[in-house]
């Protein structure tokens, strides 16, 4: 585990992004997996690699790691159809925050978010930057099946469900675009380090984009 700091910040994220990106590009023999987090990168090795050799490799990579190197940030727009059956918990978020649905959508679409890393389950983006006035606790009982592309809020986080899965987030809308491609996951729509924003779309636009 390589630790860059103890809190969550864009500065630490840049180091995590750059370190994990460079390490994955090197693809040393013997590395099994690289897990970026908010302020750390976990690297796991094949069982045939000696512990000392693994540590030495990471130490050497760290020493040569160009800390100043700025990774390229992509900007991604996520179109979202808010409310109704696509966002069945929008009312719950309104109730909890005391905001109108228009205000929730306005605040959710007003921000530039940062994708800190992809983790937890396949393609799931950890997105930071949500307007804290939208914070709403998770559902008491998680749904057994959340539709693909659902956009949700849980406490002070917002997220997108990249595959159909169980989940306890408040669903406020849905995107027609696939954010994760299991057959070509390195070229998914949403990646670590992306600057992301949501745009409110109509049912017609949703159907048109979905149909494509």
């Amino acid at each position: 585990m390589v630790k860059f700091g103890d809190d969550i910040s864009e500065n630490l994220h840049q180091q995590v992004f750059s370190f994990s990106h460079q390490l994955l590009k090197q693809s040393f023999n013997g590395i099994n997996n690289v897990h970026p987090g908010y302020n750390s990168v976990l690297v796991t090795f094949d069982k045939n690699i000696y512990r000392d050799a693994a540590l030495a490799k990471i130490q050497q990579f760290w020493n040569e790691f160009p800390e100043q190197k700025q990774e390229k940030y992509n900007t991604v727009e996520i179109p979202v159809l808010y409310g109704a059956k696509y966002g069945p918990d929008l009312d719950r978020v309104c109730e909890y925050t005391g905001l109108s649905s228009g205000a929730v959508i306005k605040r959710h679409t007003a921000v530039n978010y940062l994708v800190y890393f992809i983790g937890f389950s396949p393609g799931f983006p950890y997105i930071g930057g949500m307007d804290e006035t939208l914070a709403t606790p998770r559902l008491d009982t998680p749904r057994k099946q959340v539709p693909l592309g659902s956009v949700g809020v849980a406490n002070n986080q917002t997220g997108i469900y990249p595959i159909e899965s169980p989940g306890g987030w408040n669903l406020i809308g849905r995107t027609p675009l696939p954010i994760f491609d299991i057959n070509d996951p390195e070229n998914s729509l949403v990646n670590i380090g992306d600057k992301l924003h949501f745009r409110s779309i109509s049912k017609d636009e949703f159907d048109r984009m979905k149909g494509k």
Partner: protein
Amino acid sequence: MGISILRAGLQDTVQDLGRNGYAHLGISSSGAADAFSLRIGNLLVGNYGNAAGIEVTLVGGKYKFTADTFIALSGSEFQADLNGVSFPFHRGKYVQKDEILTIGPTQNGARCYLAVRGGIDVPDLLSAKTTHVVSGLGGYKGRSLQKGDTLSIGNLEEVTQVIVIKVKLEIKRNIIRINNGLQSKWFDGNSWSSFTNNTYFVSESSSRMGIRLSGESINSTRGHEIITEGIPLGAIQIPGGGQPIISFVEHQTTGGYPKIANVINSDLCKVGQLKPGDQIQFQSVSLEEAETLKFEQEAFIKSLKNNHA
């Protein structure tokens, strides 16, 4: 040629040694829960290292061979018969077209492996054949096998000599050896002694994703949440309730619970054999000892490769 599933077991899945290299995209490796036993099975039928077999959990099903096939069963011993005649474990055998292998309940640990010469052939997903059941990815249609499925067998030219095993293979799973975890210092001496001096029961809600344990509660002195970070295979997490969870082959790639310990590499195969109701105890070993045990296990597998039939 292939295998028809006449009746599926409780959870039969196609497994190889895992899909490494995609944790940064949220995809954990998956792979055989007891990779050691799958490797033994592959050696018995002369497959090279990473061929896929069928992982059978707790209770097996009925499997009909649509051509003459060379097969072996490995892992925990289950009741098994071929057309009514008892079928041995850890021995490669020819089965004929239309013969039916029935695998009943386990007599020991949680899993056995059905290895076939040539390997089970399913389309590769990201260069691997393992099923990630929780995410519905890979293997045969991303799921456990069902009645009516037919599996193909792979290339019979990509095989080698079969081996015979002369020693008794048994995986004892009551003692699980561990190293310190990333947050081992979040737990004081008292917590550590209750963690290693008490026994834990394997809970019913365990899966390939995680083994849930019940027993003495373990409490961290620094709370139950960390800033989300990577989780390695075998990490023992302590969530708010204080009941340990061993992250297993289909684990979440990142998480926010403190990790008191990590199962050592050579004992991951034991974790794959844990079944609900089992009683286990954790035993701390040094990093050096863990490494020695890991290489001893590799040396043992290597030594088997010379026992040609």
